[in-house]
């Protein structure tokens, strides 16, 4: 009995910044969606800045952050992805530590799409010429209107990919009996005692990134006119 208990342990898998960014992004995209549909464009703009900040931070954390946050540690080549995909139907596969090879695709795709949608929004012009994106002064009214429609079309694509992400989480929960939501909240998952843990990085790295991201978002918000 004691031996059995000793074999399992709480393994840390996601650090606080990763979890915070994940859930703030969920809230941010939700606010953007609601305010966009209801034409509350003043709030929509501010929510868009927040989302831009989070995505910039996540990209930065993907370079210098904790082990499970880094792109080099979870973005895999076609062979690894294919190998993983062929075991997807099996129910007894071990828990991946961090993103699995297939999930990595959807992470990269979602981050890329969010960045694309936000970028289109920065140049988008509303029908009234009132609450336009901060960079819309670099495009004409007509171009900006066109970009506003693309902003919407690309958001729809993003929603489909988010839908796929949610479907995958449900699939893991029901079919593979792996709870992926819990670890994204607590940061920990059950694992064998001997498994390698994630490595944290000092918090000052996050602070440096936050300062840079804030500066970029501010510069963008004033259209690079100071």
């Amino acid at each position, binding site marked *: 009995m004691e031996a059995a208990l000793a074999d399992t342990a709480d393994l840390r898998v996601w650090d606080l910044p990763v979890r915070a960014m994940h859930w703030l992004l969920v809230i941010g995209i939700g606010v953007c969606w609601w305010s966009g549909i209801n034409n509350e464009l003043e709030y929509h703009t501010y929510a868009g800045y927040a989302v831009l900040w989070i995505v910039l931070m996540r990209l930065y954390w993907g370079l210098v952050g904790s082990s499970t946050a880094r792109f080099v540690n979870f973005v895999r080549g076609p062979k690894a992805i294919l190998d993983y995909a062929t075991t997807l139907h099996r129910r007894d596969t071990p828990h991946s530590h961090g993103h699995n090879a297939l999930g990595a695709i959807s992470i990269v795709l979602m981050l890329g799409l969010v960045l694309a949608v936000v970028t289109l929004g920065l140049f988008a012009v509303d*029908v009234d010429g009132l609450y336009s994106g*901060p960079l819309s002064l670099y495009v004409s*009214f007509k171009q900006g209107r066109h970009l*506003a429609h693309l902003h919407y079309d690309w958001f729809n694509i993003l929603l489909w990919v988010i839908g796929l992400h949610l479907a995958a989480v449900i699939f893991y929960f029901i079919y593979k009996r792996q709870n992926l939501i819990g670890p994204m909240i607590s940061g920990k998952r059950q694992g064998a005692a001997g498994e390698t843990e994630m490595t944290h990085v000092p918090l000052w790295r996050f602070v440096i990134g936050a300062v840079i991201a804030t500066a970029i978002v501010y510069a963008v918000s004033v259209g690079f006119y100071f």
Partner: protein
Amino acid sequence: MSAFAFRRIAAAVFVVSVFTVLEVSAGPAEIAQIKPRQDKLRDMGGALKAINDDIKRGRIDWDNTVIPNAQTIKDRSVYLLNWFPKGSGPETGKKTYALPVIWQKNDDFQKLGKAMQTEAAKLNEVALKKDEAALKAQVLATGKACKACHDTYRSPDYEKENEE
């Protein structure tokens, strides 16, 4: 039937049929409103954007940007309510963002149109006075007058393809 009575009936039939033809042929006239109205409204949106862009840059060019664009908005706004004759909505089969509710709640629509004219006239006055703080406030008020109507009487962007 006397010849006189026959002529009277024939005349009446003719008059009625002319009116009927006029009524039916009223369609193309309403359809013809859609494209120019979109162009003119786009001019107004573009004009407000141009003023807003100068405000955002923090470099306001009164003579080349603000005054001419405020003039465009004011000039166009005078005719605004003429561009929406009954029958120029989606029933034309043409691609239009104009919603049928324009003609169902026409009193309210007219009221918002007149409010737009008032704001546009004020914007023009403020532009001529070259008062920056007043301009910022009035651009916001004018844009909100545009939005007030669009929120209820225009299809949201996401329900239609991009306008051309």
